[in-house]
């Protein structure tokens, strides 16, 4: 097994999907409203089609491949 590991990045942009953010996070949206997540990792929407803004709800998978982030 390969145990040559490195610390994961704080923010990871997933191809065609959300941005993963490690650790508790507070996001301020365009209207100045703050949203806090205390999950170990949170997924921030990048396709702008989520019904749970600013968090990912999986909706990007319903978009045609060319419209995904």
């Amino acid at each position: 097994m390969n145990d040559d590991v490195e610390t994961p990045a704080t923010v990871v942009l997933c191809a065609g999907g959300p941005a993963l953010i490690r650790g508790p996070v507070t996001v301020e949206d365009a209207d100045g409203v703050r949203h806090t997540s205390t999950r170990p990792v949170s997924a921030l929407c990048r396709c702008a089609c989520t019904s749970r803004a600013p968090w990912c709800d999986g909706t990007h998978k319903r978009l045609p491949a060319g419209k995904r982030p």
Partner: protein
Amino acid sequence: MMRLPAARGALSAALLRALAQPTPGDRLPTSWAEPEPDGEADAAITLWTLQELGYRGFADVDETWEWHPDLVALRVALERDLEVRLRKRWADEGHAATAADPAVALFDLIDQHDGPSLARHLHHHGTVEQAHELLRQRSIYHLKEADPTSWVLPRLGTRVKAALMTIQFDEYGAGDPTRLHHHLFERGLAAAGIEAGYGAHIDEALPAVLEQNCALTMFGLHRRLRGSALGHLAAVEATSSLPSQQLAQAFTRLGLPAAMVAYYDEHIEADAVHEQLAVRDVCAALVAEEPQLLDDVLFGAWTCLDLEARTATALLSRWGVPE
């Protein structure tokens, strides 16, 4: 504590008779003559019962039965039969990886699987009775949600283990027992007036539900099948957010209690995260370390989707709904 299930044939009846005896010796009593199972449901409930000895056990069953050599031998034989059956279904489908990148291959397999959707039916047309029946079927797994996958943890290398623990930690409430997923489901059932005891609905569990649960435990308990256990996890997580949203809306429309809706509401955002972690940081990282496991990862994911489709087909057929 859970009661033993009802027998579904000669083999499960023989097992239940044995488990009713208080103190097993090294060998089973001479009255034990292991019969052939009466079909897949009999085999499945027998295997499920044997596997449950290792989870939370049964009321009035001696705990030493769990590792009794003859019952272990029976469990291994039934798991071998199950694996052969599942691998035959997988082979008959003739799948091959669509991409060199294991994350892409796994996402493709999941996206391209086109089974009937219980969530879609309930979202638009479901009744309270159908919702309750679905919840009783789901209770077989959801009341031990995440537990079968925890068996895999000691078999993994550093990077994959840390990634899997990230998911499991969230599944188990990130340190807060009131957020633990199988506890959320239990509270939801109780609020909906549905018996919430662990295993309470096992006697009405569909054969496909039993197979799904037995396969998941088998994948978790056999180190050899670690790739399939993690592929199965990825398929669950990657097919959860959108259906959970449909079910949360359906259950709100049907007037189910907020505690039951909350379970599905939690899974919309949680599983949007877990999906990415399970596919990329768990499965793709595992295959990077052990490339020979790619086919097992895909087999585990496909098996999850196939058994879920069989469950959906059985329920929709019972409800008179065309697929």
